[in-house]
């Protein structure tokens, strides 16, 4: 018993692990909240596009000798908006728009990185390294992430209506286009904020998997979001500990844990549906 407790607590004696814990929980909450609407609006691949595409932003930041985060943020938001614009205003469909923008930007990133030859920390950006979180990253996560969450919660009812019935949203005078682009921009920002922890390749997973877990289990959006946050935080803590003890990439272990949560939710929702199947609806009318 004592060793099990030690297994949980001992890592947290280290300051870098404390930062990692706070950072990954923050990232988990942020991704779950934003991911809820990313999943409801069917924008799951936007994160994929922005994260892979942000390689170019990172490379540019390195070449220009600027803070990588500072360059990546406008770059990531710009990518998300470009994808949205292509999908909405041209004949390119959404999935293809993601393909075009992400591939172009990723190619640019790879070209720049190979041209520079030495790129510090490339691995930690590709695969995520929660242990490398700086206090500055944490401060940024707290401020920007908090802002994103606040905006999403404030616009919750409009976003729900937009996801469920965009035509009705327009009839009611909801500014649907600004809202759509705002959500895209916030998604882009979220991806960049989470890059350090989860890595370019895996950042999308935390946007999509916990929210999908919530959708399996919940019949209302607020509950879906709550389930997503819980699943996401559990995965972050468990993933971080696994990463510490088995010396695996933090991004990978967090995502694997969230996949386990999703699998559990699949089984649970199937059971519930099976037990509800024989209850005729409308009988109580």
């Amino acid at each position, binding site marked *: 018993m004592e060793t099990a407790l030690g297994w949980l607590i001992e890592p947290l004696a280290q300051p870098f692990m404390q930062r990692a814990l706070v950072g990954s929980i923050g990232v988990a909450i942020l991704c779950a909240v934003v991911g809820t609407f990313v999943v*409801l609006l069917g924008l799951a691949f936007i994160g994929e596009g922005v994260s892979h595409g942000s390689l170019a932003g990172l490379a540019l930041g390195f070449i220009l000798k600027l803070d990588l985060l500072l360059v990546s943020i406008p770059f990531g938001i710009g990518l998300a908006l470009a994808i949205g614009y292509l999908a909405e205003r041209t004949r390119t469909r959404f999935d293809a728009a993601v393909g075009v923008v992400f591939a172009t930007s990723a190619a640019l990133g790879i070209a720049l990185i190979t041209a520079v030859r030495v790129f510090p920390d490339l691995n930690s950006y590709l695969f995520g390294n929660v242990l490398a979180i700086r206090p500055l990253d944490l401060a940024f996560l707290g401020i920007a992430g908090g802002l994103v969450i606040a905006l999403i919660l*404030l*616009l919750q*009812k*409009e976003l*729900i*209506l937009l*996801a*469920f*019935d965009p*035509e*009705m*949203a*327009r*009839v*009611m*005078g*909801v500014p649907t286009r600004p809202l759509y682009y705002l959500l895209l921009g916030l998604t882009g920002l979220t991806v960049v904020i989470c890059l350090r922890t989860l890595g370019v390749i895996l950042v999308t997973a935390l946007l999509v998997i916990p929210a999908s877990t919530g*959708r399996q289990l*919940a*019949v*209302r*959006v607020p*509950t*879906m979001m709550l389930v997503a946050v819980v699943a996401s935080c559990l995965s972050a803590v468990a993933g971080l500990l696994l990463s510490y003890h088995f010396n695996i990439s933090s991004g990978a272990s967090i995502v694997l844990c969230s996949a386990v949560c999703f699998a559990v939710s699949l089984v649970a929702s199937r059971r519930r549906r099976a037990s509800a199947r024989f209850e005729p*609806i*409308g009988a*109580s*009318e």
Partner: protein
Amino acid sequence: MTVPVFAPLTLEPPSLLLADVVAGYDHGVVLNGVSARLQAGQVVALMGPNGSGKSTLLKVILGLLEPLGGRVEVLGSAPTRLDRRRHQIGYVPQLRDVDRAFPATVFDLAMMGRVGRLGLFRRPGARDREIVARALEQVGLRALADRPFGALSGGQQQRAFMARALAQEPALLVLDEPAAGVDEEHRERTGRLLSDLRAQGVPMLIATHDIEELEPLIFDEHWHLVKGRLSVDVVDVVPNADRHESPAVAHSHRQSVGLLGLDRRSPSGT
């Protein structure tokens, strides 16, 4: 171009005013000079074959499509400029495939009708919940309020959308084929519900294939849309008769000529 309608008897602005409306898409004009007026408290059937421009007209009225010409006024202002009053158009879309897996209860769906009235950033309060509960009561879905929306039958879904429109506290109700694709029982309920709303003085524009299917609801006018042109058919409702007790009388008095013998069947805008 004059609007071929009578001077309003009241000072209230018409619930809906169409003056020589031209509208269409890239591939051509669909509405070719449509004029009509829906007075406060009136119930109008919008009829016409498929492809006659019914859905285009509804889009223009709902502010989803900017007309190419003419004037549209809903409650005294253009639908695209209604701004804060825009939510006053209650809209019940045609029954269609919706995402049944969307995480929302019947109550949540009806609460969506409050979004426009609440405005950005504001959360629904006790009063909104009360209005939504009353709307669900009116359509007979109160007992199912906490069920997932996706678990409802087609007719029940249609009524849930009706509750959402009522939760808007609409000054004009627009319904697109409310009786299409639902069974007999739901059709009857819909007819009775709309008839009750008429008694409460809610002005309605109802796109329908068959006015009989919405009985006991009676209409004040039939608008026939054919090839982008509208003609108005005034139904002569017996004055002073209780509207609800004499649908048969009202129907038998249906005539195509207005009160003063003016020919109102001629296509408007000509």
